[in-house]
């Protein structure tokens, strides 16, 4: 498996997890998050694998303290893939407790 395909699979996993977590709340919430990512960071949901801080910031701006529960839900969806390096880094970076100490490689 090439690196590019491997990365695309991980991006897809992150996208599905984020979308599922947000769709549990409502379709307009997913639309608002996707729109805000694009407008503020010129970024799409799959790009959040490389920039989890963007997603966290958008969720924080939208739901304030309540966003931590959405992040927990994303964690839950991605837990079984946490063994993959980039997914693990994504999960560490998006975590509200570790966000400030995380340094991307």
């Amino acid at each position: 498996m090439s690196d590019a395909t491997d990365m695309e699979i991980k991006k897809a996993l992150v996208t599905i997890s984020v979308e599922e977590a947000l769709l549990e709340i409502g379709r307009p919430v997913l639309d608002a998050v996707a729109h805000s990512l694009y407008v503020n960071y010129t970024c799409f949901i799959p790009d959040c694998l490389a920039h989890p801080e963007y997603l966290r910031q958008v969720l924080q701006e939208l739901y304030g303290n309540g966003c931590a529960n959405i992040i927990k839900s994303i964690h839950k969806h991605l837990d079984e893939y946490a063994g993959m390096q980039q997914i693990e880094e994504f999960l560490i970076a998006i975590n509200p407790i570790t966000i400030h100490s995380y340094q991307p490689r």
Partner: protein
Amino acid sequence: MQNNLQHSDLKKFLFITIAATGLVLLIANLFGKDTASIISLILYIPVTVSLVVVSIILSKRFGFKGDHGKAWILFLIFAILWFIAERISLYYNLTLGEELFPSEADAFWLAGYPFLFVFTIFYIKPMKRMISKKIIFVALAISITVLTSTLYITYDQNTGTNLLEFSIAIAYPIADAIILVPAIIGMMLFLGGRVNFLWSLMCIAIISEIIADTGYLFAVLHDTYYQGHAVDVLFIWYYIIFTFGVYHHITIFKDHRKDPYKNIEELR
């Protein structure tokens, strides 16, 4: 930046609307009870219609799926029930020339509360794990304090009043105090987020409603209530504040499906 501008404009417009309705009803009262009655009845129409309209728009946008979809459907039912109650009240005012209490309108008003309560539950449900015991304790403490004060103030006033009248009148502040609990929880939960505007407004509206219901209870017990009474302005504000809160949600959760991605080429 644009959102912040819209948000501050909305706040200004809310403040102007509240001040204008208060001033209109105050001036109407200076011209006598009949004028106040007509003006307040007129004011109730746009405020209740607006709440139903914004609720329909948001319910349609969220659909039936997701916790917030269900929440907004419940909110719409609440808005419709209160709209019907206001129209019944209007009917009695126009046909009998006075506010009938208790009336069928009270059944619709009281029926609206469970829907508003379940709305708040469904809205905060996706974030339920973030609700600490401390948040629940603070919300309960505030609500019980407000309710106890209301009951304490009104208890002594019940001198020879019909028990049914008193029970129905006292049911409103009790229901408001119950709604206040999830509203405070929501306000603390969404602190720092854009959705917090709705929850802050909801708390303000509910407190305004508790004061209005207590004032109404006083006026009914002393037989001094008339349509257009000072407490009516607080009821009108309740609808206005809720409408602005829901409208703000419409601006947050805009339908972007028709917006083209302008710089799509540079992203690929």
